[in-house]
């Protein structure tokens, strides 16, 4: 019983980390109608950047975000401008392949620079835990969760309290209509992509501190993120959050109750089951005759 | 019983009642008009009749058969075709290939047969000739002008020999010469036995072509009659000029 409660708590906390990574993905889809299959690679890139800053310059992981997040925001702008914007025809399909190619290149570069050895981000709060009642929690879980709350909260404020946020929401609802009322949809798309990538930087730090990783981790990561955003409903931030936490809790609980071996399979099986009964996910819309 | 009968159909989107106990009936052999101010529910009605949307309440009968909650392909196979406000053709297929999509064969015969028998080919060319698109038959449909695409959409529905066609703003965005050609073709087909239900905003077009005309407002039918009657009907004028 204790194990299950622990699993649930861990699931909720790590769910927060996944929510951070998934929100960027679902945001990009909502505004640009493309699936950034490279998000997993970008998260790992963020993790390695934090790693490099810490190992070479002894910069604390959280402070390092002040460097990695803006840097990756710019990277996002660059990627969008160079590789997504030129796609004129058939953008949804081709962008999947383009972003996958970007992921491959990132994986290659990381493999060369950092080798394929498995690493993990370290700090006092990663290795130490504190006690609540009968349970031991690593500090990093809680701190990452707080980070997620802060960033997702910031994102919420950005979307619902700023003019730019309204432009973004409008573009998500109806791209053509947004253009008609004077919103520079291209600029909104570029910035959205940038935001999505910088969220990946933050998620990467949290991920890298919580789990061991190497360049190859991106495959597993992106498949989970994709499952999460589909389950939550593509384009829905609320859905991404709920799906992340839900999936992680179920996965961790399964690992405890059944066996770790089946935990991952359950993850994907759940997707299949939901797809049979509700193809649009929890909060998504039934795809239909969109203009 | 009338050819197409819609009884007390309701449909809402969120809080908006797109269709509110709407009842219309179309008699066989007519070119019936359907007009109404923007937002009166005309396109929603078409969507519900042809299966692209589901009604929440009410019944629909076409040629005696119940249509409620049917799928679009089923409705089409019963002989009821429709066009769309924003013309939908298959851009990457040639004009001729577009024609053949609608001439479907069922089951294994579809797998085993080439995409056009000589009979279908003749019919397709006949229809392309009817709408005047024959010289363009091997071009990808994407290359056509807007008006030409409208004609193509009109033609490819005809290859399935529908007994009734719902036309959603056929004259929209089309130049005056072509509008007359369109009206002529509709009249020819009507003489050959095809029933039409036409939604249009172009009053001249509707008044000269259709009889009877029905008027919708706020999701329900508010008037029905000959063009002259409709022109003089105070309820209709009020609906258009706003309350």
């Amino acid at each position, binding site marked *: 019983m204790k194990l299950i409660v622990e699993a649930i708590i861990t699931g909720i906390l790590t769910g927060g980390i996944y929510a951070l990574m998934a929100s960027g993905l679902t945001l990009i889809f909502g505004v640009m109608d493309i*699936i950034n299959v490279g998000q997993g690679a970008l998260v790992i890139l963020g993790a390695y950047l934090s790693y490099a800053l810490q190992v070479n310059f002894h910069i604390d992981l959280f402070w390092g975000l002040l460097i990695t997040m803006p840097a990756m925001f710019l990277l996002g702008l660059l990627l969008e401008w160079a*590789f997504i914007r030129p*796609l004129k*025809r058939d953008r*949804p399909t*081709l962008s*999947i*392949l*383009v972003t*996958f*190619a*970007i*992921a*491959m*290149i990132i*994986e*290659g*570069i990381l*493999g*060369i620079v950092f080798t394929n050895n498995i690493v993990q981000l370290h700090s006092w709060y990663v290795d130490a835990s504190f006690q609540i009642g009968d349970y031991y929690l690593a500090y990093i879980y809680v701190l990452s969760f707080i980070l997620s709350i802060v960033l997702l909260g910031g994102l919420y404020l950005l979307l619902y309290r700023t003019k730019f946020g309204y432009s973004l929401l409008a573009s998500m609802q109806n791209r053509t209509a947004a253009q008609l009322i004077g919103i520079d949809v291209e600029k909104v798309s570029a910035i959205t992509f940038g935001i999505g990538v910088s969220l990946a930087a933050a998620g990467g730090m949290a991920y890298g501190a919580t789990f061991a990783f190497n360049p190859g981790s991106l495959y597993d990561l992106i*498949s989970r993120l*994709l*499952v999460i955003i*589909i389950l939550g409903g*593509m384009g829905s931030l609320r859905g991404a959050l709920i799906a992340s936490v839900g999936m992680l809790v179920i996965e961790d609980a399964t690992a405890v109750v059944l066996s770790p*071996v089946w935990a*991952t399979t359950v993850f*994907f*099986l759940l*997707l*299949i089951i939901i*797809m*049979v009964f509700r*193809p*649009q996910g929890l909060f998504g819309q039934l*795809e*239909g005759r969109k203009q | 019983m009338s050819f197409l009968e819609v009884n007390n159909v309701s449909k809402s989107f969120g809080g908006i009642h797109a269709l509110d106990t709407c009842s219309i009936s179309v008699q066989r052999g007519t070119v019936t008009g359907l007009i109404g101010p923007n937002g009166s529910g005309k396109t929603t009605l078409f969507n519900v009749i*042809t299966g*692209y949307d589901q009604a929440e309440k009410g019944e629909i009968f076409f040629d005696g058969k119940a249509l409620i909650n049917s*799928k*679009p*392909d089923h409705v*089409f*196979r019963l002989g009821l075709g429709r066009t*769309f406000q924003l013309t*939908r053709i*298959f*851009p*990457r297929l040639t004009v001729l290939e577009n024609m*053949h*999509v*609608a001439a*479907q064969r*069922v089951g294994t*015969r579809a*797998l085993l*047969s*080439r*995409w056009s028998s000589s009979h279908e080919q003749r019919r397709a060319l006949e229809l392309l000739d009817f709408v005047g698109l024959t010289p363009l038959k091997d071009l990808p449909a994407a290359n056509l002008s807007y008006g030409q695409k409208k004609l193509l959409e009109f033609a490819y529905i005809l290859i*399935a020999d529908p007994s009734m066609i719902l036309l959603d703003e056929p004259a929209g965005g089309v130049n005056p010469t072509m509008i007359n050609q369109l009206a002529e073709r509709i009249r020819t087909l009507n003489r050959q036995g095809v029933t039409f239900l036409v939604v249009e905003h172009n009053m001249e077009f509707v008044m000269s072509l259709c009889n009877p005309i029905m008027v919708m407002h706020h999701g329900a039918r508010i008037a029905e009659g000959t063009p002259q009657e409709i022109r003089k009907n105070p309820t209709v004028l009020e609906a258009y000029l706003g309350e």
Partner: protein
Amino acid sequence: MVKKIGLVVLLIAFIAFPQVFSNPAVTTIAIFTLMYATATTAWNIFSGYTGYIALGHAAFFGIGSYAIALMCLNWHIPGGYIPFLLVPVAGLIAAAFAVPVGWISLRTRKHTFVVITIAIFFIMQPMAFNLRSITNGSTGLSLPIPTGWGGTYFNFPFYYVALAMLVFALGVSWWIRNSKYGLGLLAIRDDEDRALGLGVKTGSSKLIAFVISAFFVGMVGALHAYFQESIYPAFAFDPLFDIAIALMGFLGGMGTLSGPILGAIILEPTQRYFTMQFSANGYYLIIYGALFLAIILLLPEGVVPTANKYWLKWKAFRERTKNVSNESDDGKGKVRP
């Protein structure tokens, strides 16, 4: 007429190839190229014609691999020619799996569909690891080794079986392309809702194409397994397989007949070359990814359709210049400027 003669010549060239270039290193690459050409052609039957990008076909490749391995194991099939007969059976087994998988996946529209196919793959792969009693876990299974096929000869039967599979797949693809059914698929690609409204049975059409493509991919998996003589989960269920066939399909031209083959002929030997030159994984990925990007950005339609466009333009240009030179002689022997 010219086209038909050309095809026959090509076929003869393919048949003669291993006799002429009998070096096993060369024929091995040829076998892989043929297998990828078949797999891409099969993938094209579904993704190229309907426009639904499936990125989980590696699952069917793996099912085919394990199917043939298990059949040989349980029925004590000796090495030699007999296992080749089991290749189509493995294909049918993969196709059988494709029915429920396709049915579930195709309930969604294009974006979600891609992800579901990826998810299906990520369920199959760990299952291969975990169902130890059937699949022998990460140790994998071995296949019967044909004795008496020494040296150069070994590759020949595999080459011809692979060639036969390609011809078969190509034939089916060609047939579909010219049938009423195929027209329905292409209509689905352009505007699925409209196609549905015109009486096309979109649901069953898509599913049938999906199952057919799984059949061929399963056969490729089976042949591959027999060729490699042993399989294990990461090898049989390899995500890079999906990327490879998608890239070959796009490079060659989606929805065309020769495109997939061209894509395979260009990319497979290149891939082999790179793996040999740059054994350091990193460089290989960077170059491959960059190549990918270049192809998508510069040749978004693929080689065959783009070449076709230029060919038509050139033909039209020739027509026009021919007419001009005819016109400019105004009958009086003078050439108008």
